[in-house]
């Protein structure tokens, strides 16, 4: 669960979300990432470290370059959690649909009875 905490904390920062959005289009080096964000390399490297520690991105070694890419599983874990929360709520609300239908039926039969009594 510590890693999931780290993932959400990592995602709470807009710059890091933008970095992930960029990486979703493909692998990129620190230089390539630093340019569009107008940030210094050390600043970008710091964000990359947070994302890497959270298991959201992976570093590859290619000569002197260290291109980063998305780690599929990190994002998947969170999507999975949201899907699970959603599935539980959907199930509750499907049941609520039935409860509401019963309430309506009950109300209508009461109204019918009132009508009969008149």
């Amino acid at each position, binding site marked *: 669960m510590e890693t999931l905490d780290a993932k959400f904390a990592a995602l*709470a920062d807009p710059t890091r979300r933008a970095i992930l959005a960029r990486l979703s289009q493909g692998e990129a080096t620190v230089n390539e990432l630093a340019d569009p964000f107008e940030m210094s390399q050390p600043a970008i490297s710091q964000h990359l470290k947070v994302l890497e520690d959270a298991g959201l991105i992976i570093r590859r070694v290619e000569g002197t370059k260290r291109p980063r890419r998305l780690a599929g599983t990190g994002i998947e874990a969170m999507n999975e959690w949201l899907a699970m*929360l959603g599935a539980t709520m959907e199930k509750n609300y499907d049941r609520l649909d039935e*409860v509401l239908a019963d309430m*309506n039926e009950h109300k209508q039969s009461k109204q019918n009875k009132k009508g009969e009594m008149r």
Partner: protein
Amino acid sequence: MSKMTLQTEGDSCLVVMRRFAASPEAVYRAHTDPELIKKWLLGPDGWSMPVCINEARPGGKIRYEWTNGKGHGFYLTGEYLELNPYHRIVHVERMFLPDPTPDNHAETTFEPDGEGTLMTIRMTLPDEQTRASMLASGMEHGMEASYARLEGLL
């Protein structure tokens, strides 16, 4: 097509929207009358809510206890902050799994939508760290619920 949507908003909000084929009054009552709540707010199949306290007034208490009948259970406590009957509810809640999760602040609105109701729940968490730990503990619970459901299938 799914009737419910769940999405994140900004850094600290989760927004759930769902339409119901009933009046705002009926949907509101189903969220505040314990006898009605016990019929649907149950999570996975096989779970029940033996304790359901819901004092629908400002400052009123909420307490839900769930069990799967096989020794697994957890509970939630909360307090009502504001109630505008049939339109809007503001409350705060936390789950005990058994350690308490951070407070989840929720605003629920019930708006007329054609013949039915559009319900919107906006959950706001104090800060990113709190959201992170709430989501983390929610995941633990969600997984346990899934395992419980799996047990039911075996």
